[in-house]
């Protein structure tokens, strides 16, 4: 059975997009083959076929593709019998149907549907040749590849990531006569731009990979292996050295090359006096070089560059790369020196000329707001007994954004914060400032953008953590007040990431911080400012911001901490403002959840909630306050437990001993079980009924402060 090959040849695809696009193409062609019954493959769909990608091509190869679709029988439904026959004689509608399916009327059967009986014919459908079908259907699969950003080059209605230059589409030796964007598919592919053949023929799909290798083009997996080996080999020439492992960078260079190798270059050791952060940023982010370090992780004056060619016979490439790196390092050193002309403290004033956000004013305005908010947070934390240096927070907040005016940050924007931290450490700041305080200020500034992703660490010091929260909360408050909250996939100011950061820091540091109060205070920072005049009156600030943070907290508990969704729902339904408390409650609920007593209580709580809801829908309400005397004995027994157990649970909750509290609560099970076994709640007698309802209401009210147990998903019947 033939193999199928599709190769889309383009101008260089951005490295960051290649992997996902290749995967999407593979999945969509596979689905096409399955849906059109063109494949006889019966194994695991995830292992079907191969995908092949380089900067200049996306390709898929599928074996076991059939030359033509199998023939099939299709049932074609015609007019209803009522329409088809009048007084037993066929109507023109019946004749027309017979003509359409090409069968005599007496051979046509009928089917019974809920709407009545209809004429129905079995029509043999001839399978179509694979060549025709693929030629017809593949263009929409090609144009359907999702790109983060696409362009047009020939006709504004045709879009692709970059101009498409050739197509190979083959079913064994045969060419699939496919056309896309004015390009006719053939069997001619193209090799590596410089060291490969410009064009070459592919004899059949099974020889595709081999033919490419001949033309100096390797698949992604092979390129990665080759790069790793080349990096290892080049590093081995320096005793005791290793290359700094960097998965993202490796992925990038794999997707920037068709036939890679690596070279080792060096730079003047004097540049090692520049901070590592700067050296690595230049090498990694700007030049895509791997850094080289010794056994202790200390940088060595070498770098590794991955090339898109076979070798560097005359050393010209190494020499060129060394030149570029030297110039970059020289620039960085020049910027570093120039920047020292103004101290970080003096630069704060210059922030008046740096925009934070069009409507929210300058970074100077933000600085003042963040300092105020950070001070409030530190006071709150200090009151709860955690140790924190208020002066460090205050000073760090004041200088945190000052590095935005430095040449170094203008050149290497990804080093914002880090440069501020480095400068605070390198400069005296104030004559009488003790070094320990200055270094603490430096660390807080250095870390205050952290965490920049879910994997990133949170700030190392408590002062850095507070500053980070204040900075992020201020941004979120301003944007929400403007009505610019994230919607769907649109989050241009990365507010979700920032809110995730706030949640993580508070949770990890167990800060006793109310989210609502934090955001209220952050909003208060804008009071009376020019920005406030831009806030639309229609915005429901606290409603939207509280909901947003609750969502982030939910995300944190579920996706980061791994609590089951029903536990999270139960806990957050009982309160989501004190995050540290919410996590402690989630931990307790998750712990007691597997016990039989707890499961039974969850079921009972759900039942109580249902009964109360149904009663209220029927207009039957509990009494204002419970009158025990009106209750039957079994119900009274249960009511007597509420007070004592409630007191114990409350006492334990107050000291956050939630799992003990839940265990106490579980002890109610026999009474509750007994109640539901013996008692019919919705009795006729109004006095009894309304007091029984009041009992259930009081139980729910008293014991739902840790979690709303009715949210817990149970296997038992309600």
């Amino acid at each position: 059975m033939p193999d199928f090959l599709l190769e889309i040849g383009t101008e260089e695809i951005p490295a960051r997009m290649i992997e996902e696009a290749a995967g999407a193409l593979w999945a969509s062609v596979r689905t096409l083959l399955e849906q059109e019954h063109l494949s006889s493959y019966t194994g695991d769909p995830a292992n079907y076929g191969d995908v092949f990608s380089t900067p200049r091509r996306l390709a898929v190869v599928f074996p076991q593709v059939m030359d033509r679709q199998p023939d099939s029988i299709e049932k074609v439904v015609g007019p209803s019998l009522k329409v088809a026959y009048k007084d037993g004689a066929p109507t023109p509608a019946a004749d027309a149907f017979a003509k359409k399916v090409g069968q005599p009327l007496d051979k046509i059967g009928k089917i019974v549907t809920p709407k009545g009986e209809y004429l129905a014919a079995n029509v043999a459908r001839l399978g179509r040749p694979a060549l025709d079908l693929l030629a017809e259907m593949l263009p929409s699969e090609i144009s359907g590849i999702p790109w983060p950003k696409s362009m047009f080059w020939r006709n504004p209605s045709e879009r692709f990531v970059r101009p498409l230059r050739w197509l190979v589409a083959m079913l064994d030796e045969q060419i699939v006569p496919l056309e896309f964007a004015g390009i006719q598919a053939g069997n001619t592919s193209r090799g590596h731009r410089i060291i490969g053949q410009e064009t070459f023929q592919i004899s059949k799909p099974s020889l595709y990979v081999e033919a490419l290798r001949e033309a100096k083009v390797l698949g992604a997996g092979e390129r990665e292996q080759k790069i790793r080996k080349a990096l290892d080999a080049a590093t081995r020439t320096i005793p005791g050295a290793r290359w700094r492992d960097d998965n993202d960078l490796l992925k990038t260079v794999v997707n920037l090359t068709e036939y890679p190798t690596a070279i080792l270059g060096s730079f003047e050791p004097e540049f090692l006096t520049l901070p590592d952060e700067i050296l690595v940023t230049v090498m990694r982010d700007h030049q895509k070089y791997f850094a080289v370090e010794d056994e202790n992780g200390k940088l060595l004056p070498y770098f590794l560059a991955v090339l898109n060619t076979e070798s560097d016979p005359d050393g010209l490439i190494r020499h060129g790369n060394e030149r570029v790196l030297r110039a970059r390092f020289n620039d960085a050193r020049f910027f570093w020196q120039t920047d020292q002309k103004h101290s970080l403290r003096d630069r704060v004033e210059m922030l008046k000329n740096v925009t934070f956000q069009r409507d929210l004013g300058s970074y100077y305005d933000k600085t003042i707001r963040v300092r105020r908010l950070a001070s409030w947070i530190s006071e709150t934390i200090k009151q709860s007994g955690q140790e924190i240096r208020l002066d460090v927070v205050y000073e760090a907040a004041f200088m945190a954004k000052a590095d935005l005016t430095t040449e170094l940050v203008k050149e290497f924007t990804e080093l914002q914060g880090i440069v501020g931290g480095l400068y605070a450490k390198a400069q005296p700041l104030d004559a009488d400032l003790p070094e320990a305080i200055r270094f603490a200020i430096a660390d807080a500034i250095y870390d205050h953008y952290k965490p920049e992703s879910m994997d990133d660490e949170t700030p190392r010091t408590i002062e850095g953590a507070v500053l980070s929260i204040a900075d992020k909360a201020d941004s979120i408050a301003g944007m929400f007040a403007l009505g610019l909250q994230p919607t769907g996939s649109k989050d241009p100011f990365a507010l979700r990431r920032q809110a995730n950061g706030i949640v993580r820091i508070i949770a990890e540091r167990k800060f006793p911080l109310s989210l609502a109060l934090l955001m209220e205070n952050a909003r208060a920072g804008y009071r009376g400012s020019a920005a406030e005049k831009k806030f639309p009156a229609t915005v429901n600030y606290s409603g939207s911001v509280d909901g947003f943070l609750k969502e982030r907290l939910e995300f944190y508990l579920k996706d980061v901490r791994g609590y089951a969704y029903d536990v999270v729902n139960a806990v957050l339904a009982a309160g989501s403002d004190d995050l540290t408390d919410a996590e402690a409650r989630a931990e307790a609920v998750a712990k007691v959840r597997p016990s039989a007593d707890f499961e039974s209580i969850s079921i009972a709580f759900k039942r109580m909630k249902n009964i109360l809801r149904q009663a209220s829908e029927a207009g039957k309400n509990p009494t204002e306050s419970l009158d025990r005397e009106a209750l039957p004995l079994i119900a009274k027994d249960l009511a007597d437990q509420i007070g004592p157990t409630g007191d114990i649970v409350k006492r334990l909750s107050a000291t956050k001993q939630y799992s003990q509290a839940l265990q106490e609560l579980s002890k109610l099970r026999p009474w509750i079980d007994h109640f539901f076994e013996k008692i019919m709640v919705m009795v006729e007698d109004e006095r009894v009924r309304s007091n029984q309802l009041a009992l259930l209401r009081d139980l729910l009210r008293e014991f739902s402060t840790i979690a709303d147990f009715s949210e817990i998903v149970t296997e038992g019947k309600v």
Partner: protein
Amino acid sequence: MNAIDKATIAKAAPPTFQELILRLQSFWAARSCVLQQPHDVEVGAGTMAPETFLRVLGPKPYKVAYVQPSRRPADGRYGENPNRLFKHMQMQVILKPPPERVQEIYLESLEALGIDLRKHDLKFEEDNWESPTLGAWGIGWQVMLDGLEITQFTYFQQCGGVDLDPMSAELTYGLERIGAFLQDVDSIYDIVWAHDPDTGREVKYGEVRLADELQFSVYNFEKADVERTWEHFDLYEAECHALIEAYGVLCKDVKLRLQDDGPNADVAGLARDKQRFPLLGAYDLCLKCSHLFNILDARGAISVTERVGVIARVRNLAVGIAKHWVDQQKAAQATEVQAPNDQQKEKVPTHA
């Protein structure tokens, strides 16, 4: 040194800065480009010269190459930084529409500079281009040669807020970078600009341009009078704005007259009224504003609240001109179709 040695060395020696320009010019001239001269109003990039900004608009094919000195006041470093310049030179090539082999042809241009690509490492790395001031954006790459960005390669998609059809390819060679690379020098100021064939004396980039860098850094950062620069900005803007308005009025007039006069309308005459309107003058005024804005910015004279607003003011001018330019090109096409002979017969004296 005997004659043979000299010849061998001359062949192997890298091109001087001016030879670099000459080689690129003859390369692109041989590929049907008009060789233009630099635009003589200050611009921040070759893209802003009318030969790019205006020519990429509308349907008419065009191929052009020119060197454009590009001034970025804030990038000045008093001639002290070996890699940074206030004014650098770009070789700008516009191919409208781009030929199918545009990337390959570009690589041939590198070979024409004496770069043997088999001995170097070449990568096309994603780098899209956007200019909010010009209402323009495109998709493309930075071309990396041995880790050095030597060219910005862009497929224009929109310019002056107008969608382009056909689109253009723009190749922007960074001449100083390429010169330093070819000559293997660490400072731009050490690039050999010219080589006297008689005396063998070398003229370095620094000798030609250092004073320029120093003095303009002083001017842009220290001396430019903020108040007067603002006045200049306002005046140029007002003049430019008035022209844009006037063309709008003319369009309305022409439309009315076409309606009123019906079949008797002097279509060619009306089209010529549009054609002679000085939108090119308006565009130069817009460029002046852009440059003055850059000086004010370098001078630290633009506050936060002003900044966004001033960029929008320049963009308004650029977008207004682009829109009118497309209309004017249509008028020009109309007269070409209408009366090609008439036009040829008329011997209009050109600016002599």
